């Protein structure tokens, strides 16, 4: 984790409702407070969804402060443009933003997404079949999941930069400007893309706020839009906000028919990656996984229902086939390498139980012994997502057996039985007398 989600300690009641929502078992509750294990968190935002107290939140930079700036340059995630019915067109959104004094980089997005799609199509054409399928880099939560849980798949991540970064690069190249850019994000994962990216040293963007906040802020100002702005370039990039859109865009630039799989939601993502790791997906060229249901429109930082967003996208006429001009533009920028990842992704596996194998085996045996003592009902009262997680925490030195309320009860029961039996004991000074009485009674 790199700060996409943050805990508001004052709000946390320690109810532990969140711990089971985490797909990587990264949450623990101890001493009445939730804690995130940074090496395990993939910034998916599931915990943000389930916390009723709003104690776990999407990290955002100070919007008031950003807003107070003279000139706010904004890179908005495609989801931003499909949040409100009346503004389902980037051109209108741009006008609305302008009327609120925000400069957006929409026109660079169309080109950037085209380049990304083109670059991926080219790589798929030239790569030898047995190195395929490649995996999309678009969802940073999926990338982290791969780094942590599927280290053997890291080499399949397509070495192409996120189109959001490319968009800003294009703007910088064209205008020579260097103002800090704020990104409107749909999720904690893209927040992390801004603040602690993988695949490059530093993001081209400086700040992040949620799509939800931006939408509410703009609507609150009831912007006047005329819709008279000149026609915008193609809108196929908007489709990257739903599952399958990326693959379609790549296909539009590919010389050969591609075999692709697009899935959304973490359960599907995990299952698909497991099958890929087992080598059961031969013949597939490209895999597009999104952590959120239906894709980024299901991100925790959006404001609109994901179903309505999808409906809106479905009702838009898209120009899928690129014009000759667009194809040429993408091809020439492909030569410039603006799309290439700065540095490759690396695996980030969890530290084993011990540094050397023999010790790790001993610890694992201990862990199994502890686990077999636990009730196996995964009640969560210990602050861990499962009995297995508690046993692992114990051998790693982060907990004890009595964290389990059933074990605690057993201990108390044992102790109270002992107290009971002790309380029945008689001080030795009285003992012979009592035994005497007793015997007397028996022989009466």
């Amino acid at each position, binding site marked *: 984790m790199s700060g996409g989600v943050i805990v508001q300690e004052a709000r946390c009641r320690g109810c532990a409702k969140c711990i089971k929502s985490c797909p990587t078992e990264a949450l623990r509750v101890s001493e009445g407070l939730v804690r995130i294990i940074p090496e395990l968190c993939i910034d998916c935002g599931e915990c943000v969804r389930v916390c009723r107290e709003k104690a776990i939140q999407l990290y955002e930079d100070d919007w008031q402060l950003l807003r107070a700036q003279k000139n706010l340059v904004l890179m908005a995630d495609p989801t931003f443009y499909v949040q409100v019915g009346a503004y389902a067109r980037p051109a209108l959104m741009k006008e609305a933003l302008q009327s609120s004094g925000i400069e957006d980089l929409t026109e660079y997005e169309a080109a950037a997404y085209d380049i990304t799609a083109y670059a991926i199509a080219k790589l798929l054409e030239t790569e030898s079949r047995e190195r395929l399928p490649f995996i999309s880099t678009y969802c940073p939560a999926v990338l982290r999941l791969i780094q942590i849980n599927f280290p*053997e798949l890291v080499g399949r991540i397509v070495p192409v930069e996120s189109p959001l970064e490319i968009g800003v690069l294009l703007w910088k190249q064209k205008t020579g400007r260097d103002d800090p850019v704020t990104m409107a994000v749909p999720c904690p994962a893209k927040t992390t893309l801004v603040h602690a990216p993988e695949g490059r040293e530093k993001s081209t963007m400086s700040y992040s706020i949620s799509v939800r906040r931006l939408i509410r802020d703009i609507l609150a100002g009831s912007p006047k839009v005329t819709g008279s702005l000149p026609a915008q370039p193609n809108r196929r990039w908007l489709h990257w906000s739903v599952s399958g859109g990326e693959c379609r865009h790549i296909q539009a630039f590919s010389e050969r028919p591609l075999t692709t799989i697009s899935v959304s939601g973490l359960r599907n993502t995990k299952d698909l990656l497991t099958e890929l790791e087992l080598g059961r997906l031969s013949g597939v060229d490209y895999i597009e996984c999104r952590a959120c249901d239906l894709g980024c429109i299901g991100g925790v930082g959006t404001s609109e229902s994901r179903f309505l967003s999808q409906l809106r996208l479905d009702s838009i006429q898209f120009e899928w086939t690129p014009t000759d001009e667009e194809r040429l533009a993408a091809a020439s920028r492909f030569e410039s390498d603006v799309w290439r990842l700065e540095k490759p992704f690396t695996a980030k596996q969890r530290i084993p139980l011990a540094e050397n194998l023999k010790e790790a085996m001993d610890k694992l*045996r201990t862990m199994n012994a502890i686990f077999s003592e636990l009730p196996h009902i995964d009640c969560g009262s210990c602050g861990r997502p499962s009995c297995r997680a508690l046993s692992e925490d114990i051998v790693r030195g982060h907990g004890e057996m009595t964290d389990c309320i059933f074990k605690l009860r057993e201990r108390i029961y044992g102790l109270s039985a002992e107290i009971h039996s002790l309380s029945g004991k008689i001080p030795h000074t009285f003992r012979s007398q009592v035994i005497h009485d007793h015997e007397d009674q028996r022989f009466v």
Partner: protein
Amino acid sequence: MGPQPYVERYVVQGGVFDAIGEASTQLKSVLKMLGIPSDITRRATVVAYEAEMNLVIHAGGGEITASVFPDRLELFVRDEGPGIPDIPLAMKEGYSTATDEIREMGFGAGMGLPNMKRNSDSLDVRSEVGKGTSLFAVIRFPSDPVQQPVKEG
């Protein structure tokens, strides 16, 4: 006698397709906790998965025993199913006796045994028709088996 291995035992039920992958997933997590390198872990997972599938589809269930030694992983797979009449034939890529029904579910490409062979350092298959089948796969670790995962900065 060498050092005591770390042993895991998985019972696989016949015909229960939903459960396919449980044993191999658990083995993967065990090997990770032990710090076994990820490529070895992947190979072991593939072998266990294919074994699990064959137990479910062809053998009416069975048992997988995984033993971790300091220098190797041994997988012993045993069932009391119908047995394999011609083992060299069964080991051929593409050879399968799976029914159409099973093929429709996406299994039965005849790639399981060849895959197990490819992913293990040695594979020994023994079978007696009417009695059952046993497989013994060994996957060796590189000389320094515990890897140092990248720590988060």
